[in-house]
């Protein structure tokens, strides 16, 4: 594809990105909430890890996991794009069919903006507070520690890039399902609990029971949060880290293919709501 062919997707990404950066009040409120939750979680998990049973993660690794998990919370595909859902209800979705662009790529670009703008606003202050302010006040033990090393940083950055790709593929799939089912309610009710449990946002995945681990490693939600977080703290290093990157990439490709296939069918049978 040439540069000019990519222009519409770049344009929609930029427009959405700038729009989403406007919600500052929501970001401040959200930041406060996440600090509060992170604090509670750090205290609860340190109490669990202080017990006599050996833990598969050290306290350091667990605390890093909790703070980064709070920082990147908005990267999770919590819900379908509310604006697209409104279009489905009002019938404006028909205009989306008229655009002389690849429909899936266009929506995917929207999703990428949604999964980068808001998370950036939330992640930066959280990393600053827990990684810089807390340690300088002498509470480094309860804050975000430095990454495990140069290799961990590079792998972490690669993994985060794949998180954006994967989360956007998830988001777009949700959008397509909304078109198919004509309502965002059912989709959203289902996906939020799945995302929060299987990504490791609720409990770090390695702390779940041992017999669940093989399944947890290979399911797609692990690539949304669990993989980069464990790479950062060094819990996942070397070839296991590369393997995690590979799983993230494979799931992205599969979800894009699935989203495209469903979209083709849904759009072919689309009945526009009058109104």
């Amino acid at each position, binding site marked *: 594809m040439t540069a000019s062919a990519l222009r519409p997707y770049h344009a929609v990404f930029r427009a959405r990105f700038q729009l989403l950066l406007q919600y500052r009040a929501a970001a401040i*409120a959200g930041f406060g909430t996440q600090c*509060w939750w992170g604090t509670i979680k750090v205290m*609860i998990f340190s109490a669990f890890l202080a017990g006599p*049973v050996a833990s598969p993660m050290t306290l350091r690794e667990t605390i890093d996991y909790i703070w980064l998990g709070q920082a990147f919370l908005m990267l999770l595909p919590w819900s379908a794009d509310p604006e697209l859902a409104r279009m489905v209800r009002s019938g404006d979705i028909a205009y989306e069919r008229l655009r002389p662009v690849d429909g899936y790529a266009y929506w995917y670009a929207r999703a990428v903006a949604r999964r980068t703008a808001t998370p950036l606003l939330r992640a930066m202050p959280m990393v600053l507070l827990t990684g810089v302010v807390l340690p300088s006040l002498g509470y480094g033990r309860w804050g975000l520690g430095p990454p495990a090393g140069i290799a961990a940083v590079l792998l972490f950055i690669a993994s985060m890039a794949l998180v954006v790709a994967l989360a956007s593929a998830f988001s777009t799939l949700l959008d397509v399902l909304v078109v198919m089912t004509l309502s965002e309610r059912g989709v959203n*009710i289902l996906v939020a609990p799945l995302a929060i449990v299987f990504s490791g946002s609720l409990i770090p995945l390695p702390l*779940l029971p041992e017999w669940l681990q093989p399944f947890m490693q290979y399911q797609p939600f692990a690539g949304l949060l669990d993989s980069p977080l464990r790479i950062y703290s060094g819990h996942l290093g070397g070839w296991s880290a590369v393997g995690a990157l590979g799983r993230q990439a494979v799931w992205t490709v599969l979800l894009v293919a699935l989203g495209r296939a469903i979209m083709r069918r849904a759009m072919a049978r689309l009945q526009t709501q009058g109104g």
Partner: protein
Amino acid sequence: MNAIRLYGRYVGVSLRSQMQYPASFLLTSAGAFAATGVDFLATWALFARFRQVAGWHFGEVALFYSVIGVSFALADGLTRGFDIFGDQFVRTGDFDRLLVRPRSTVLQLLGYELRATRIGRLAQALVVGVVAIRLTGITWHLAPWATLLFAVAGGTALFSGILVLQATLAFWTVESLEIANTLTYGGVEAAQYPLDLYARWFRNFLTFVVPLGCVSYFPVAAVLGKADRTGVPAQLLQLTPALGFVFLGVALWLWRYGVRHYTSTGS
């Protein structure tokens, strides 16, 4: 018509209107049941690995969880009018209409909606409660049950008080602020574990500022026979849920101050 009968009418109207969409009601309730259920499964998974936390076992923590969960589900169902007060009444100016009616604003807002879908969350917390009682072997004596009921009543009052405070804030901010979520949902998260897990400042906050510990940790510890872990005399523990009512009283007093301060947006 007296206030109680009027409230009954309000509730009847609200329930009838919600039952016009039975599928939506069932789906939302089932969704809430599943979402909170998954949340609790995660707690169970932690205990499956670590066996105990600071000496507390799964059944005991389940009882903390159940008491706080039932309280929140009840309060959240009853006080919907306060929850959406900023957006629905202040910003639109609709609060003027409430003021000209010859009834108290609190009664009218309580009657605004009884959220039936909260039954999903309530049912989940009750199921956990049944499991907890089986696991901890609480007997059918009057004393523990009276304490648990009192704790739930105090907890419902406390969470209602938080939502009334959130609404009161809207007199100044005009919009509904989600900041109260840290105390409602965040409070549920914090109070489902025994308070002696937490750092001292946080424990003090949950005892003296927003007394969530007084409606779950202290009374439940008394029921479980672990009064000695709290550092408070056993007889006193069973009375602590009263602080939930005190909190609600303070919130309602501030609410009246807010109502006097109210100026309509005029829109």
